[in-house]
Every structure is written in structure tokens, then in C-alpha cells.
């Protein structure tokens, strides 16, 4: 008896804890840190509790009348049940929910007042352009990047979304809800991250063969750190340091990588693939599917299509292993 009571207390303390930690994750809408995501997480818990109670009520009633209750209700009361349960009760619940839920909407659709980003969905990666606070987006962006966004904590960033060929959807669950990206059309949202950290996001609209492999990290920084980072990101690429990196830069040029990729400050100006100017400074490779290290870079360059089916970048399996390693060293050094 005492033992089972102890177990029960233990379970009651541990249960919700385990449950809540089971909800955590780098891409979880239930580990919200952005203002909009926090509002939606709150709304969710309220709705979950309400829905659970209503479910128990209805199904408890069905169980009761089919299994326990043997009497016969008067038709008058039965009609009362239809009107009360089918009309009045849902009307009250749903109206209050609409008022409460929809009031959260304008915030996420409000204009941002901080940094501006334009993110373009490509198959299957993200093109990212930055304008500092107060800049006119008609001017060229101060920095071009890919597959990672950085935001300062505490201010509402303005985000313009568009797409190259097919529809994608931009979503960082911990920061806020998603918005679709259309070719030939611009959609707008804003995000207000509140805590420093790295949050994972992923394309949410089916966009073809490797839809599953189109992710990105959102890195939220202290505002001061962010300003410094953006200044650095706007700079040209650092020249290669050391023998291997210098050799890698030569191979990069020889192999014609610059036809598709840009490395600012070098002759490489291609715009088909991601900008690589500060590739080594990013937290992941190939749109969030590989870690950013030399091994991963080599694996990717060797055969992109085996890691991301349908990727348009050709494989460079004709490169000597040493050259491949040098190329990876060069790219990793582009911080």
C-alpha cells in the first residue's frame, strides 16, 4: 500500500516532467522562444486542456448511456440535449476561442522594425539577403548568404519571402508560424526572437524530390553581436591561409565552381547555387543536413546527389583525394 502510494507520488512528479521534456527539441513549437511562438504555445495548452475535457465529457456521456444508464429519457429532455449540447455549448466555446485565438494574429503579420531579410526558396536550399535596420530594401542587400539566418534578440525582424521555381514554406517553429513562398510573388512576415540560441527550421510545403532535406538554422544573437556579425558578413571573403587552403582556392577556380557559386572578393560570381563567401562560418552544410566540417564538405562535393536526391550540383568524384581535401580546407576556412 505504502509502496504503491510512493510510486504514484513519484509518477505524479515525474510524469508531467517527462511529458514536457518529451516536447522539447530544436525544431519544436513547444520549445517556443520567439514572441509569436510563445503566444501560440500558450494557446495550444489552453486548447488542449479544453479539448481533453470536452472529449471526456462527450465520450463519457456516450459510455454512460450505452453501458450504464438503463432508464429512458423523456423526449423533451432529449431535445434539450440536442439544443444545449449541439448549439448553445459549442457556440459559447467557439466564440470565446475565436476572440482569444484571432487576437494573436495581427502581431505576427505586423511590420518589423529591425533588420530586414529576404529569403528565396530554391530547390532545395535557401537564399538569404540582409538589409540593416532602416535601410531601403530597394538598394542591394548588404550581405548575401544561404541556408542559415541570423537575427538579433529582442527586436521584430521583417522577412520577405519569395521562391525561384516552385512553392516552399518558411518555418522556424520555435520562433513563429510558417508562411508560404511563391514564385513571382512576395509574402511578408515578421519574427521577434527573445532568447539567444540556435533553432532549427524546415521547408513545410512539399517542393519536390528532396523536400525532406531542405532545412536551415536560425541563429539568434545578442543585438551587439549581431551588428558585428552582419558587418563581418558584408565583407569580402578572407584570402586563403596556409598551403592546403591556397591549393583549395586554385582547385575551386580550376573546376569552375565560380560558375554557380559566388565568393565575394574573388572572380567567382555565380548566382545559381548558394553564396559561399562566409560558408565556414555557418552552423550547417547543404541546407541543414550535414555538420559544417571538412569531412562533411568532402562527402558533399564528392557526390551531392547521393546525399540530396535530385540536387543539381554535379559530383566531383574525379578529384584526387588530396585535392578534395584541399578544396574542403579552403571552403571551411571561408569564415
Amino acid at each position: 500500500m505504502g509502496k504503491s502510494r510512493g510510486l504514484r507520488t513519484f509518477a505524479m512528479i515525474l510524469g508531467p516532467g517527462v511529458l514536457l521534456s518529451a516536447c522539447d527539441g530544436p525544431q519544436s513549437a513547444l520549445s517556443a522562444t520567439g514572441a509569436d511562438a510563445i503566444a501560440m504555445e500558450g494557446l495550444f495548452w489552453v486548447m488542449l486542456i479544453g479539448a481533453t475535457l470536452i472529449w471526456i465529457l462527450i465520450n463519457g456521456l456516450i459510455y454512460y448511456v450505452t453501458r450504464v444508464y438503463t432508464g429512458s429519457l423523456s423526449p423533451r429532455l432529449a431535445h434539450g440535449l440536442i439544443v444545449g449540447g449541439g448549439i448553445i455549448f459549442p457556440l459559447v466555446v467557439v466564440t470565446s476561442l475565436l476572440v482569444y485565438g484571432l487576437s494573436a494574429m495581427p502581431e505576427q503579420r505586423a511590420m518589423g522594425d529591425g533588420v530586414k531579410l529576404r529569403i528565396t526558396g530554391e530547390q532545395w536550399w535557401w537564399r538569404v539577403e540582409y538589409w540593416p535596420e532602416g535601410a531601403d530594401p530597394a538598394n542591394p542587400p548588404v550581405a548575401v548568404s544561404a541556408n542559415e539566418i541570423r537575427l538579433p534578440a529582442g527586436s521584430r525582424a521583417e522577412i520577405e519571402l519569395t521562391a525561384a521555381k516552385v512553392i516552399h514554406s518558411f518555418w522556424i517553429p520555435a520562433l513563429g508560424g510558417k508562411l508560404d513562398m511563391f514564385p513571382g510573388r512576395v509574402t511578408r512576415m515578421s519574427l521577434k526572437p527573445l532568447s539567444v540560441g540556435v533553432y532549427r527550421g524546415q521547408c513545410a510545403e512539399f517542393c519536390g524530390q528532396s523536400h525532406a532535406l531542405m532545412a536551415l538554422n536560425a541563429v539568434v544573437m545578442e543585438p551587439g553581436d549581431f551588428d558585428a556579425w552582419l558587418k563581418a558578413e558584408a565583407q569580402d571573403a578572407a584570402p586563403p591561409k596556409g598551403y592546403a587552403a591556397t591549393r583549395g582556392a586554385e582547385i575551386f577556380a580550376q573546376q569552375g565552381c565560380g560558375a554557380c557559386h559566388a565568393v565575394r572578393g574573388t572572380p567567382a560570381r555565380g548566382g545559381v547555387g548558394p553564396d559561399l563567401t562566409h560558408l565556414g562560418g555557418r552552423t550547417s552544410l547543404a541546407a541543414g543536413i550535414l555538420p559544417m566540417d571538412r569531412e562533411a564538405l568532402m562527402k558533399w562535393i564528392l557526390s551531392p546527389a547521393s546525399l540530396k536526391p535530385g540536387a543539381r550540383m554535379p559530383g566531383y568524384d574525379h578529384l584526387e583525394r588530396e585535392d578534395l581535401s584541399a578544396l574542403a580546407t579552403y571552403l571551411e576556412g571561408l569564415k
Partner: protein
Amino acid sequence: MTSDATHPSRAGRGNPEPIGTFPPTEEMLSEPVPEELARAQEERLRKTWETPKGWRYWTAVNNSEVGVWYSLTAFGFMLLAGVLALLMRVQLAVPDNDFLSAETFNQFFTMHGSAMMFLFAVPMFEAVAILILPAFLAARDMPFPRLSAFGFWCFVIGGVFVMGSVLFGVAPNSGWFMYPPLATKAEGLGSDIWLLGLSFIEVASIAAAVELIVGVLKCRPPGMRINVMPLYAWYVLVVGGMILFAFPPLIAGDFLFEMERSFDWPFFDPERGGDPMLWQHLFWIFGHPEVYIIFLPSIAIAAMIVPTAARRPMVGYSWIVLSAVGTGFLSFGLWVHHMFTTGLPNISLGFFSAASEAVVIPTGIQIFAFVATLMVGRVRMSLPMLWIAGALAIFTAGGLTGIMVAIAPFDWQVHDTYFIVAHLHYTLFGGMVFPVMAGVYYFYPFIRKQTMSERLGRWSFWLTFVGFNVTFLPMHLTGLKGMPRRVFTYPGDIGWDWLNMISTIGSFIVAAGILVFAWDLIRPKGHQPTPPRNPWDAGTLEWTHDVPAENWGTRSIPYVTSRYPLWDQPKLQERLDAGRYYLPDAAEGLRETMITSVIDARPLQVLRVTGPSWITLWAAAFTGGAFIVPTFHIYWPAILSAILAVACIIWWLWTSTAQIPEAEHKDVGLGLKLPIYVSGPEAPGWWGVWITMLGDSTAFASLVFGVFFYWTADRSFPPEGYPFVDMGLALGGAVLLSASWAVNLWVRGTARRQSAMQALALAMLLAIGGAAALIASAALPGLDPTAHVYPAIMWALIVWIVAHVSLGVIMQGYCLAGFAFGRITARYDAPLWNTCLYWHFLALQVLVAVAMTALLPRVL
């Protein structure tokens, strides 16, 4: 007795009136039928309604055969689509799995959704309705049996074609929603297979819907006023109407889409003024009602089982009818909730959030009416009732998550995640699969005259119920933790792995439950004792069936005065069996059923329905060719196939419909004589055309919507530098086509055969001239449909009209031939009425199309 009260003045010229007494008196009903006469009648009925034997079995068109084939085929497609789901679950069981390739996975999820929707859920409703509706109404058959058979064969051919593409690895791979530009630009045949194969099936679905609507409205037994008919019939009526208005926008979308795929008309290409959002709107204007098209018929099954289980009439019959109709209407106002993340203005989102939440009320009413009925009665927890209880438990959970996702900002988080996967499976399993299973257990003794195993049924229930929740309950969390839908793999370090493993295990438990059910369904039951005739003590007419089975549907067509005739009319069964009621005989050896008036079910006509034939199979095969061959971008054989299909259909109509009868009236018993041949608004064929043309006009309206959509989406529509449609030629075309319509109408009023024929020939020439003028009005100014979406949509309207005029000319030619060969006369003029009705709609479409092409762009 007067003619149909709903259309007293517009009835066909010279339609004879029914003669005699109605309603029958108690004295007439209690008079016994001589034994010998009854025996002879039974013999004749049996012979008339006999199912063909041997290889000719497949020529059967009777609802009891076609309904069984139809539902088994739909069930087979469900099993195949379920296997695809299991394979996907294996792939997702562990992270970074390579059991399926990305391409294969994408084909599988596309086909899982498409097949479950188009090859299982909607056809299953139509199959079940064809199978059991006539019995609810004590009708001998559906009003157009060959149309049911034609629809079934179309479904088989189209379904095998679409589903078969998976085996060759060329299946559609852009999702069941086929969003352009991904799907328009997809390489290979997949998108074409989806568009053409499923359009073909959609046409068959609409055909079935037309037949079901006419069945409910015109084939009820005498006395069964519309407020007395079984709730199932109400739901069939509502759902038939929804199909009629929901499928055409999709068909219009398919038409635009395939024109882009085949001929590069840029409807959805943003670089040439097109807009992928138009497809999303058209798709979801179809797609959302689709959800209720699936859900309502299953609730209808529940509405039949619940009163039987409670042994009490349904409480709140009128509430339920109003709710069903209300849900039908509301469902057309919610489609934008599938597009909450597309960046529409907040005001639209608020409106559609509120509209979506409003569905809670009719749904709540229906569920609480069931609960109230259970409370009023004393419940017997039979196996079907167990499945219904399971359905309610699952469906209410799906409904409650539906309330959550209808809140737009919350949907921004969960849209296109596993949360939605969980939500939609809760609504569809609870709202469709479980009630249909309940229905199979409930109606099995009616359909097969055997019973399914109680023990296996409980095993199947618990396996499916537990497995379902193990699979889908965790998916809510998987989605909240950020896992999007339609991903073929996922990384192992973000906390999705154990949730996916649980779901995969659950999916195999569901599969086990379905397998137990399938085994019970098909296992030999020959040793069973014959079950009682009315095993559940139900109150509705299907349980007057004959055990062992007879093909005649009902021995005689009863006079019905109650919602639950078997409970309230104690002598009904005995009199029905004795042949005391209407049409107890088949003296001429022809298949006959009764047509009654729409509202108050007064007898109007004896309808001679069509019998077994190969022609339906041939017509379906050639129609299939016309849809399937263009998939491969080959057009001449397709055109040939289309011509053969039209020829088959003409032959079928010519040889079997609106035959001139041997007498004006037929004695149907109980002192009543009914006309055999009626034309115009009293005839079921006229209703069929009228209802079909409502659907057709909806598709046309969708194209018109497209024009306005492009205009509102792009201020510079029509763009500078593109020519207008020639005003003179367009107006000339409209005048010629209107003249053709007027001449056609005049023919309906004339009594002289010679002048009718001359006038019909003139009408055909006018129509052909009008169509040519419309083509010239766009071709001469040089509108190039591949250059921009503006000329493309103008051409789309003209192509639509020209195709309809071609059909209109064929119909006029049919009437001309009818006069020439004496099949149509001033008295026997049903085809002429139907042709005129078609031309009413066509003339209206012509005027709108000319206004849209020639006038509107000049004004904008």
C-alpha cells in the same frame, strides 16, 4: 388525381394522367391475393429480373450486382493504398532510413492520398448507396441502371490505370493536391496520369451522383413524403448535391492544368501572367466539400444503426436533416482554411476561421441527436453499435483538433505537419472508416443473406481501434515537435525517432485489424444457417428483403406512411410478400419500377429501366481510351476512341431508353393505372439532364471565376499589346447559337413531323456556324494562347463552348433521327425535351462566354 403538384403547368405536352384511386384504402389493402396468381407473378418477376449467367454475368446492370462489384473494388483500392501507407511507415520507422528512395516515397504518399480520396472514399459512398438505397426506398432498381454499370466500369478502368502506374514507378509524385508549378513542371507522365485518370473517375462520380439524386427524388415508394424518407436518403441527397457542385471546379482546374501540360497554355505560370494560387482555390473549393462528401454518408450509416440499437425512432429527425443540409452549404465556404499560410490578408483569415468553426454546430447537433436517441431508447450493444461507438470516440477527437487548427494563427504552426496528418486521420477514420465498417457488419445479412462472425468482428474492432490510436495519437506531438508532412526521411537527433517508431508499430496493428475484417468478409460461410430476415429488428424497408435472395428488389412496392414502416405498419411485410401492393407483376417481361412526385411521393409513372448489356462496358472502355491515351501525348487515337464512345452511348440510348410503349397506361394494382411514357419535368431522364447541367454550369462558372481571379490578382489584366477577341464575330456567333436554341425550342412545340425535321437540320447548321464564328473571333485577331494567360483563358472559354455546342449538335441530330425513324413523335418526345433543356443551359453559357471574351476585356 392530378399530375405532379410541384410542376403542374410545365408537364410534357400530352403526358397522360394517372387513373384511379390513390392513396389505397384499408379495404383494398386487406383483400387477399389469390395464391395461384401470386405464384405466377413471382415466376414472371423472377425471370424478368434474373441475373445473367456464365460470362454474361458481367453484363449485369442491376444495383445489387453493380453495388457489390463497386464496393469490393473500392475496398480493394483501399487495401492497396493501405499497403503504400505501411511501406511509408517502414521507411519512417527509423531516422535516415533508405528502405524507400525519395522518389518512390513521394510517389507513394501522392498515391496513398489520391487513391484513398478518389478510389476509395467517394466511390465507396456511391457504391454503398447504389447497393442499399433502392432497398430503403423499396424501389426495384436505380432509375438508370446502365448508368451505374457504366460508372462502375469507368471507375475500374481509371482506377487500375492510375493505381497501376505505381508498379511501373511512373506514378504522380507531386502530392494529392498537385500544386503547380511543381506539378505542372514535373517531368514524366505522373501529372498527366493524375489529371486525366482521375478526371475520368470524377466524371463517373458525377454520373453516379446524378443518378442517386434522381433516385432519392423520384423513386420513393408511394406515400413516402420527403419528410418521411429515411435519414440515409436525406444524406444521399445532400452529398449528391455537394458532389455536383464540388467536383466541377476541380474538373475545370484539371482542364486548365492539362492544357498547360499538353499545349503550354500558361494558366499557372507566373512568368506569363498565370497564377498558381488559382489552382489552390479551385482545388480546395473542391477539396473541402470533399471532406464532408466523405463524412456525411458515413454519418448516414450511423443514423440508420443508432435507432436500431436504441430500438427507438431517431430523436430530432428535422434537426438532423437541417444539420446535414447546413453542413453541405457551409462546407463550400471554408476552403481557405487549407490556405491559411499562403499570405492572404488577415481579414480573410478571420472570416474563414469563423466560418470553419461554425461547422461545429451542425456537427454537434448530429452527434447530440445520436446521443439523445441512445438515451431515449434502451441500447443493445451489437457489433455494429460497437463500431459506431468507436467511430464517435475517434471522430470527436478529430473534431476537437479541427477546432484548434481552424484558428488561423495556430494553424501557422501546425499546418503541413504531422499534427494535421493526425487530425485528418482522426476525422476520416472516425468519420468514414469506422462507420463504414459498422455498416458492413450491419448490412451484411441484407446483402449476402449470411452473417459475419461476432468474435472476429470484436477482434477486428479492438485491433483497429487500438492500432489506430497507437499510430495517430503520437503524431500530434510529432507535428508539434516540428516534423513536416511528406518528408521521406528525417534526422535522428531532433527527438522524432521514438514517436515515429511507435506510429509504425501502430500502423501494423491497424493492418492486422483490417486483415481480420477482410478475412471475415470473404471467408466461405456456406455451412451457416440462414439468418433471420430482420436480424437487428430494424424499422426500415431494406429489411423486407427476401431470404434466400431474390433479384426483383421488392416483391411489390409498398404504400408507406411512416419513417419506420416495419415498426409502425405491422401488416406491411405480409402484404408486400403477398404482392398486395403496387407493381406485383412483370406481365410484359420488362424491368419496371415506380416514379413518384418529388415532395409528396404520389405515383406518376411506371418507369421501364434498362437491363443487362455489354454496351456499358464498351462505352466505358472507349471513354477510358479518350482520357487515358492523351496521357502519353498521343491525340489521334484518343479522338477516335472518343468518337467510338459517343457512338456506343448513342446506340445505348437509342436501343433502350424512352421506347414507345405498347399502351398508354399500365395497371399497377390497387386500382391504379399509371402512364408508361412521360416526357418533360415528370420524367426522371429530364431530371437527370437538369441535375447534370447544374454541375456542368458549375464547371463553367469556375472558368469565369478564373477570368476574374486573374483580373483581381493582376491590375494590368488584360495586358497591353494583346489583341481583343473580334467583337463582330463573337456577337455573330452568339446570335447564331441563340437562333439554334430558339429553333430547337420551336420544334418542341410543333406537331408536324416534316417541319420538325427540317427545323432540326436548320438548328444544327446554325449551331455549327455559331461555333465556327466563335473560333474565328479569337483566331483571326491572332490570340496566341501560349503567349500569356489572357489569350489562354479566352481560348479556354471558347474551347469549352465549342465542345458543348458539338454535344448539342449531336443531341439535335439524335432527335432528327428520332423523328425520321418514328422513335420521336409529338406525343413521345422525351429526347426532345431533354435536348431543349440542355440547350437552355448552353445558350446561357454562350451569352456569358461572349460577354467574358468580347466585352469584358474591353471594359477592363
